[in-house]
């Protein structure tokens, strides 16, 4: 039913686009060619811009930042948001019926859909005229990912600002570990196993030794049933990977996949992991950690923001900050470790063909980028200070109050500069920063070689990938849980592999390989 609905919308959009193309005398602002190398000023009165963005829990029109942006850019903007549910359908419907938005910020797959329907205005000339800062700030790979087959730019990318972040890690109760004679944080998979065994011997069944995975409740989320800082020890860093010969392969085809399963089975059989491993989610893992039931728990930045204040609070476990340790990406027995860079494009800003203020929209985005530090981080001495090492330290609570929601207003960034500025946003919470510093900063200083490029970071939404990948990932997750739980043996991997291939796996592989060869010019 949903497919028919989407198909209907697609047809409607094509018809609308064709109707739009047929109108004579319609000037397309981007058609005006220019060779200008510097941003052109726009004269006259600045119009009110109409903006559509992704769903948020606050009102972007009444947030104090709206006024800050208006004052700095001179543009009044009417912000609108897509719903949290059915956002794709709503977006298509809006565009199909000739929505009058000037700027639309969408996800990568939504951008691809709009692009394939011919609903977007080419931005190359507009950027040349009014968006020189935007052009310079974004890397060529990011531009490539937002360009059409005609080579023109159709979207302005917002790339995840900090690629070398260890996103998933484990929180460890150091007070309990020290009492059991463990004074060091494990860094290899063998040390980690020995730590668990020692804890089990010392505490028996008094505590859950290791709880996880940190699985979001939402069905749409991609949840790894084995934390990625454990899979890193086995060289598995993504569901799809590429070997040195350019062969695209799935995680279950990795040579270390059986070894990884064997390791997890060992933990399960020896009672070292939570019995509820198969059904845990973020809430239950947080509960077990903050209630003092678990010694080690899988977590992430948002997870520690929830649990640490409770663990250190006097109403909670009353721990000291040094009683909480963080286990980062583990290395394998041979010392190798692979952790994928978070180098994806999160959002794409585009301008619909129906926009009446395309030049002003690009100009507005450009002014925002010119004032990136002020708009996102604030004023030195008021919102932040510089540390001795040059890093930015926010001044709370004013930073949180006046710049806390700036991420929603971002369209493009000077990617290199923003990568330096962004960690300050993690520092708005002591709990988040403690984990980030202990895991990500430490890894970047001591072991930056573990980070592996995300080969498919700039891949658009491919047909078969969109169609099959989520369900294949789900069935792989179920299979992994069955293997860990012992209801299936690793011998069944071949059967699984064949079902996986027939269930769309091979189709995705072919499609991804074609894209890979094309994008990287192989």
């Amino acid at each position, binding site marked *: 039913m949903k497919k028919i609905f989407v198909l209907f919308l697609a047809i409607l959009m094509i018809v609308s686009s064709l109707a739009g193309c047929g109108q004579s005398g319609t000037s397309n602002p981007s058609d005006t060619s220019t060779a200008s190398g510097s941003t052109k000023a726009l004269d006259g009165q600045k119009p009110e811009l109409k903006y559509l963005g992704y769903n948020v*829990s606050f009102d972007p029109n009444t947030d104090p930042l709206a006024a800050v942006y208006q004052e700095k850019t001179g543009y009044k903007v009417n912000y609108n948001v897509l719903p*949290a549910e059915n956002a794709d359908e709503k977006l298509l419907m809006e565009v199909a019926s000739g929505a009058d938005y000037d700027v639309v910020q969408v996800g990568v797959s939504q951008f691809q859909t709009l692009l394939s329907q011919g609903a977007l205005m080419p931005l190359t000339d507009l950027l040349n005229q009014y968006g020189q800062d935007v052009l310079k700030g974004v890397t060529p790979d990011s531009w490539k990912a937002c360009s059409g087959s005609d080579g023109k730019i159709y979207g302005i990318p917002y790339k995840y600002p900090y690629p070398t972040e260890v996103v998933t890690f484990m929180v460890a109760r150091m007070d309990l570990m020290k009492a059991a004679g463990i004074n060091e944080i494990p860094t290899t998979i063998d040390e980690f196993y020995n730590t668990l065994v020692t804890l089990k011997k010392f505490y028996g069944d008094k505590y859950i030794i290791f709880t996880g995975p940190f699985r979001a409740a939402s069905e749409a989320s991609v949840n790894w049933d084995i934390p990625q800082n454990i899979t890193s020890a086995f060289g598995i860093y993504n569901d799809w990977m590429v070997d040195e010969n350019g062969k695209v392969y799935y995680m279950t085809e990795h040579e270390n996949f059986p070894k990884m399963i064997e390791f997890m089975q060992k933990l399960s059989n020896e009672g070292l992991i939570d019995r509820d491993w198969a059904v845990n989610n973020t809430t239950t893992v947080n509960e077990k950690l*903050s209630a003092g039931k678990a010694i080690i728990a899988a977590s992430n930045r948002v997870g520690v923001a929830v649990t640490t*204040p*409770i663990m250190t609070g006097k*109403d909670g476990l009353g721990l000291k900050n040094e009683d909480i340790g963080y286990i980062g990406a583990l290395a394998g027995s041979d010392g190798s470790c692979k952790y994928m860079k978070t180098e994806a494009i999160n959002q794409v800003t585009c301008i619909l063909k129906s926009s009446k203020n395309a030049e002003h929209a690009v100009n507005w985005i450009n002014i925002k980028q010119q004032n990136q530090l002020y708009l996102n981080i604030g004023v030195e001495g008021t919102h932040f200070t510089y540390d001795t090492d040059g890093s930015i330290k926010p001044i709370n609570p004013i930073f949180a109050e006046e710049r*806390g929601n700036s991420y929603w207003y971002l369209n493009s960034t000077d990617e290199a500069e923003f990568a330096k500025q962004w960690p300050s946003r993690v520092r708005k919470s002591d709990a988040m920063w403690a984990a980030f510093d202990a895991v990500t900063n430490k890894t970047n200083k001591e072991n930056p070689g573990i980070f592996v490029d995300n080969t498919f970071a700039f891949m658009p939404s491919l047909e078969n990938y969109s169609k099959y990948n989520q369900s294949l990932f789900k069935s792989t997750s179920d299979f992994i849980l069955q293997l860990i739980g012992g209801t299936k043996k690793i011998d069944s991997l071949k059967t699984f592999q064949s079902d996986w291939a027939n269930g769309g796996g091979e189709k995705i592989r072919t499609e991804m390989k074609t894209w890979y060869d094309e994008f990287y010019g192989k």
Partner: protein
Amino acid sequence: MFMKKNETGIPLEASEKVMIVISYIIMSILALCAILPILHVLSKSFSSASAVTSGSVLFWPVDIQFETMKYVLRETTFLHALKNTLIVTFFGTIISMVVTITTAYPLSKPSFKGRKVFIMLYIISMVFFGGIVPAYMVVRTLGIMDTFAALILPFFIVHFNMFIVKNYFEGLPESIEESAKIDGASDIRILVSIVCPMSTPVLATVAMLYAVNYWNNYFHAVMYTNSTAMQTLQLFTYNTISNTQTIVERLVAGNYANVSIDGIIAAVVVLSLIPIVALYPLVQRYMVQGITIGSVKG
């Protein structure tokens, strides 16, 4: 506690008593199934962040605090969303009732020329819905996107409700209206001063059905509104539940040490329940009546 005699005064047999006991047990379990989740959510909304996050709240608040409620009322757009929903429900119900009554009344009169054609048109549009996209296009073309009108107009007549009212009007004695006519009353006067007062039960029921429809309406708010200023309570609740990460980041950055994300979700659910819980005892009678009217005459 249980009945010792049946309605005819004859003492109950042992099997009947057993059945009554079983019925009570089943009904109690079902009642608990309905009440316990509400109690759990209520307890969470008044418990401390540490108690909620560590999972120690069950059916009674632990370390009672009101910060979560304060956060929802002061820091979120809950009150604004509530105001929007109240406006839509209040004005929507009034408009719907006026349209329903003025449509049902002529259609209930056999003397109304073309009555059958109109009834057939209503039945056709009741059975065959034009579809979401055309409905959306109509709203967009009318230029009422993101306004209260978009949340009321597409919904302002529910054919089923109109037929309930029409059937009820048809059952009223014709002689009363005739006598009013002889006394010189106009059609509008007859409708307002005679027919409507005589139809209070059905009108109250239908008004309540409309009000519940407007109150619970989520889909139209999703489709026809974009700005947070037009967000209704149902949309606000869904968005709060879906945007946990954003809320966590706001909590840790602000001074809300005793507020947890699960507590906020619980508080939003509790607060959005209050108006309905407060109104339900008053409209319960009509709710039951509505079901009966629908089953007999629908």
